[in-house]
């Protein structure tokens, strides 16, 4: 069964460093999302992406964040200059509208900023 994959599973970085989190969505899906879950808090929406552009973003998704679909398979989230408060689990999701608005999630990347 097709699934969303994410790499790396864990990422440790120093404050101020750039990180790129990678996702491979399900191959025929056209809508892509990033969510994050700070330890002990709710899963929260970051950004949605469709037709090679951001369709919606949250207040969290400021100028330090960017997303890209560099080729036909990968979907990346870049944090330019990480802060301590960026430490969280980051989930990628993808969706095909024919599946009734169901988003399929990857296993997540745990980002730790020191």
């Amino acid at each position: 069964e097709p699934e969303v994959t994410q790499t790396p599973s864990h990422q440790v970085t120093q404050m101020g460093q750039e990180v790129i989190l990678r996702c491979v969505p399900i191959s025929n899906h056209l809508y892509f999302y990033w969510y994050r879950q700070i330890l002990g808090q709710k899963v929260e929406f970051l950004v949605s992406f469709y037709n090679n552009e951001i369709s919606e973003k949250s207040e969290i998704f400021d100028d330090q964040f960017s997303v890209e679909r560099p080729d036909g398979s990968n979907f990346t989230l870049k944090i330019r200059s990480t802060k301590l408060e960026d430490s969280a689990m980051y989930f990628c999701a993808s969706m095909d509208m024919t599946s009734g608005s169901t988003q399929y999630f990857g296993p997540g990347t745990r980002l730790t900023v020191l």
Partner: protein
Amino acid sequence: AQSVTQLDSHVSVSEGTPVLLRCNYSSSYSPSLFWYVQHPNKGLQLLLKYTSAATLVKGINGFEAEFKKSETSFHLTKPSAHMSDAAEYFCVVIASGGYNKLIFGAGTRLAVHP
């Protein structure tokens, strides 16, 4: 604006007894609602979804949920808990706006005791 409230942060049951995880929603229109499960160190897995068809929705692993508009509820149930059901469960609603942003509840941690 759409929102979901999970009424219990922790639920503890004995193996073989029924499970009830409560969720209330707030929506200005007929919502699409989901339950996702997150096992330790795993991603978010879809259990079931309601999208205005039958009000009683059956999902995987013996779970089901009933959409009750009069009570604005979407409680998750299972007749007989199994040890493998121990996980965190999220009630989720799709936000309005057309891009299918998901809004998560705070989660309910289910513990199952022998």
